């Protein structure tokens, strides 16, 4: 089985070979004999690479995982052969950018732009309150406001779209 792992903007192919007695992985030209065991009710993996021991905490479901290993966190995207193939089929129309998303859950305190406004990079679009701190959400590029997805007083989740910009 082959897996594609995206981390830090780079993609790595991981080949998993379980035909023998042990599991072997090939990655970036390196070959590892690996033994993996789920521990702590599956919230961690004990990974032995040859005899080097690692404990990896794993969070998230599906294709987006957050791993913590040796005190470093990795935000990782994964897909296998089949998923990649089926995604290639459905991915005929691109999604396009320019949407400013909330990086945190919070409550929208003020919305300072409306559709049609011309904004410059760094202009304040809205104020988001989280944990009693007010955070300014700024335009990340020059552009025109195409859509305002939220209203003052509204609670938003992390990742929720806030404002769509048509970037010049």
């Amino acid at each position, binding site marked *: 089985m082959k897996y594609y792992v995206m981390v830090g903007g780079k993609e790595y192919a991981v080949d*998993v070979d379980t035909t023998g007695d042990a599991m072997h992985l090939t990655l970036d030209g390196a070959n590892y004999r690996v033994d993996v065991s789920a521990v702590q009710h599956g919230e961690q993996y004990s990974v032995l690479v040859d005899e080097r021991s690692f404990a990896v905490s794993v969070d998230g479901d599906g294709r987006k995982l957050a*791993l913590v290993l040796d005190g470093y966190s990795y935000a990782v995207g994964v897909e296998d052969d089949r998923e990649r193939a089926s995604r290639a089929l459905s991915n005929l129309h691109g999604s396009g950018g320019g949407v400013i998303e909330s*990086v945190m859950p919070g409550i929208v305190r003020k919305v300072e732009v409306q559709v049609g406004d011309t904004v410059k990079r760094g202009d304040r679009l809205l104020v988001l309150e989280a944990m009693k701190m007010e955070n300014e959400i700024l335009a990340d590029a020059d552009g025109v406001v195409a859509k305002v997805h939220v209203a003052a007083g509204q609670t938003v989740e992390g990742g929720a779209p806030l404002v769509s910009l048509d970037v010049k």
Partner: protein
Amino acid sequence: MSKLKKVLVANRGEIAVRVLRACREEGIPTVAVYSEADRNALHVRLADEAFCIGPPPALQSYLDGDKILAVAKRAGADSVHPGYGFLSENADFADATVAAGLTFIGPPGSAMRAMGNKISAKARMKAAKVPCAPGSDGEIDDPAEAKRIAESIGFPVMIKAAAGGGGKGIRIVKEASELARALDMARSEAEKSFKSGAVYVEKFLEEPRHVEIQVLADRHGNVVHLGERECSVQRRHQKIVEETPSCIVDADLRQRMGAAAVAAAQACGYENAGTVEFLVDKHRNFYFLEMNTRLQVEHPITEQVTGIDLVRAQLRIAARQPLGFTQADVKHAGHAIEVRICAEDPDHNFVPATGVVRHLDLPGGGRVRIDAGIYEGMTVGLHYDSMLAKLIVRANDREEAIARMKRALAEFHVTGVKTNIPFLLRVFDTPEFLSGKYDTGFIDRNLATLKAPPSDGMTRDVALVAAAIAHAIRKRRSQTANTGAGGGANESAWSLAARREGLRR
């Protein structure tokens, strides 16, 4: 010996747990209060009695003093411990507690008022010959006036909430053009946090150390200090790592700062536990910053090096017991460090993280202390602050303490909610921290290093491998769940199956 009869703990999270534990060890029955969001919280389970006081927003629950005093009456409590935050520095609440015939486990309202308004506090400190930083002599609400003062003392300046504390309601202003907006936001934030929008202007000392002195004052006139805490590892005025002793404080400076702190406490008629915060410049000049008229988050490091249990001392002082020791009896041994483990994502600008804590693995071993409100199954939401736990270590010296902290942090695992543990670990790899020569600019200066990805190829490869395997296991698990076979079965067995079958397709 007089003793409190029943203590109501007017707080939540780790500090409520901390106070409940102290009461239990003192043999005093306890009453918890909780908002509807906290029905399952640890402090509810550890108390003898628990009363729901309203919906999740703090203004309708933990900040509603009338409701809390009504519960105290109903439960037959004779005393109230406010913890930190919420009502802990609310002089009106302290007075109302006393007026209701109960003991407030903290200073009198008069001492809070004297110190709570930062402007009058500064005047009082000047009279007591405690050095203070230059700034406005009163409240500022006019941007023009703010500008005039700022220009007279020189930029950068700070706009601070007169009723503030804990880093909230503070804005740093580097030039005149930013002043109006910062004033506006600071006022709004202060209004929301403290029910008072009053702010003032003070000279911003660039890159000072933040060093504070713990004091204890009984109701018989005895005041002692328990040495310093170094709290310069801060982000946005929020302390993240604290240690004692401070690398900049020698015996002479400790004696002088301690004497100043005791003078400050005496100047406002202080009782119970309190903390006098100072800024220290590189020449070891120190300036009064503010007095926190309550228990501090970071109080455990003082407990670890002095052997004095500050919360039990609070309970005894409130019961009118004498301190039982003098300044000469206070001995410091070893070195202690605390880190604050918060639900946040340091890789995304420290935004607060939410979720349900699925799994929790706590470090153990000698001289490792955990004060936590976190538990498995806990929902981490947005209503309250993001601190999940404090991890405190003690050792014979600073080097040993750092090694122990790294070891303990590496054993601390949380899934379901992102935490700053990886970030904290890197603090202890930073040469500037290791040298002991750091100040409040530490995090900004070292942000690149603190956020740096690991360089070890093997470690990265293991993460990639674990990701591939976790993906395979999760995919198969969800397929199995959909077809109704298996379910919440033993995950370990599951893994074996996945290794043997899932990956062998």
